[in-house]
């Protein structure tokens, strides 16, 4: 029997159950969108002065925990009220760099004392590794980054020989395709084959790009470009990553390389990184203030996202191919700065060892402060 034609009140009355189902469907879709898929993004407002105070407080945590030999307090367990053991020379160099960048030259120079007592010189190059440890490109690269920033902050050229030695170590670890072997073994006196670091390749690229800025015309640009091309086009497949890796150090490197001009592949890689960091900032902002937030991001995790975002914001201001990203990257940088300031332990907190730090699950370590401080420093020009 054919269906009756539609129309009139009787027709709509016949559809009453359908109408009720439709109302339920629309309400359900709206609720799922709002509560689960696309919660509101909350970016705590922050100005330059407030961000600068947060930088100071974070740097204070690092400086106050510095030991007589120049090393820093590695970690702190707030619930137990005791420092955490362990040390990591790559993080030592990274913290040194952050301190030079924020103008804490005295403590950073004291940290340089520990470095000078643990340098390896071999085959014309210099690396940074305490006795018993193999030389790690990451530590050498971040030390080079710190020394370039020291050079720029103080005008002191006393460590140029060490800096060039570190650059030669990085180049010695570089393979013809631009990849960077992470370790050089004391036992064998040779590079360890087939081992690549998650971050050390990006750190090496950033160091080489800065070396070219410090010593233009000395030949640091070609190796920097080789690794930039490797990161932009081949790294993930070559090193067996199922997904493209995020890399805030590569973002720093690309921003540093920008005055020399980026290739299309490098600009494309920068765009991909911008999308990745931008997404992470949006995701984090959707969790701000949510009572059932089950996640707790560390200062290092948030800070690296902020560092990558702010570096690419600077790059987008100088490379016209990325100019369309500039405003949004500025917004994301400011948003993350607000989140960082909000999550920092206040200077008035009862536990003096917690003040100025960023905790996750009751724990903080030196690189939490290093990355958070660097992210805030990078965001300052983007703040109102």
């Amino acid at each position: 029997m054919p269906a009756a034609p539609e129309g009139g009140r009787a027709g709509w009355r016949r559809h009453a159950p359908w109408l009720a189902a439709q109302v339920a469907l629309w309400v359900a879709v709206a609720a799922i969108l709002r509560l689960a898929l696309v919660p509101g993004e909350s970016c705590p407002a922050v100005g330059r002065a407030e961000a600068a105070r947060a930088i100071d407080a974070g740097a204070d945590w690092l400086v106050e925990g510095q030991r007589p030999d120049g090393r820093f307090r590695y970690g702190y367990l707030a619930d137990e009220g005791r420092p955490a053991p362990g040390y990591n020379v790559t993080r030592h160099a990274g913290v040194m760099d952050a301190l030079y960048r924020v103008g804490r030259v005295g403590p950073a120079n004291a940290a340089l004392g520990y470095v000078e007592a643990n340098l390896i010189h071999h085959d014309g190059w210099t690396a940074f590794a305490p006795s018993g440890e193999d030389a790690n490109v990451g530590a050498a690269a971040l030390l080079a980054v710190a020394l370039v920033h020291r050079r720029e902050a103080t005008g002191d050229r006393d460590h140029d020989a060490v800096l060039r030695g570190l650059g030669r170590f990085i180049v010695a670890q570089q393979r013809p395709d631009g990849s960077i072997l992470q370790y050089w073994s004391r036992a064998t006196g040779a590079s360890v084959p087939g081992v690549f670091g998650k971050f050390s390749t990006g750190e090496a690229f950033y160091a080489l790009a800065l070396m070219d800025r410090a010593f233009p015309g000395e030949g640091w640009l070609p190796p920097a470009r080789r690794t930039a091309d490797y990161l932009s086009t081949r790294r993930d497949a070559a090193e067996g990553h199922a997904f493209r890796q995020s890399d805030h150090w590569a973002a720093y490197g690309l921003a540093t390389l920008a005055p020399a001009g980026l290739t299309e592949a490098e600009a494309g890689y920068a765009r991909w990184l911008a999308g990745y960091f931008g997404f992470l900032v949006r995701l984090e902002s959707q969790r701000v203030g949510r009572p059932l937030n089950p996640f707790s991001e560390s200062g290092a995790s948030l800070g690296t996202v902020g560092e990558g975002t702010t570096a690419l914001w600077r790059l987008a201001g100088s490379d016209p191919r990325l100019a369309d990203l500039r405003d949004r990257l500025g917004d994301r940088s400011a948003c993350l700065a607000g989140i960082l300031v909000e999550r920092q332990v206040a200077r008035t907190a009862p536990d003096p060892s917690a003040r100025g730090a960023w905790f996750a699950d009751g724990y903080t370590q030196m690189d939490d402060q290093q990355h958070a401080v660097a992210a805030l420093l990078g965001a300052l020009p983007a703040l109102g």
Partner: protein
Amino acid sequence: MSGGLLIAGFLATTNAGRVALARDGARPGGRDLAAALAAGAVLIAAAAAAADPLLDALDISPESFRIGAGLVLAVGGAVSLIRPRRSGPFAAVLVTPELACFAISAGAEEPLPQVLGAAALALAVAALAALAPRPEAIGRVAPFLAALQLVVGVALVVAGVRDV
């Protein structure tokens, strides 16, 4: 959002094949046909025009909303693939969450005339499907347009994740 994705999104979410199937089942009169097209057009225009203030009020960036809209399109497309014929009055055949979400997402990112132009094209196709002499034949494209909706949904999610 590229022009191609804009047109594909509206063609998929208005799904002319589903319109033809609905007409085949409901035998609507001329007024119902006009009401269906008008409802679809009003939904699109209102959603696209209100997109910016709506997302601002909800504190949602267009890039993040694109992810949510993409998921709604993907789920709606999958459901339509399994069950292309929908119940309910013919006049409401175009009033769907996926069309509303796509219109909001498009309206938040593209100029309104461009969005309305792409939507008008899709509505014209839907109108032709509703007026076709053999709606059951046109109805066979419904699953394909549902599959297209699923693909557009996935593309929106990927674009939303990859965007700044």
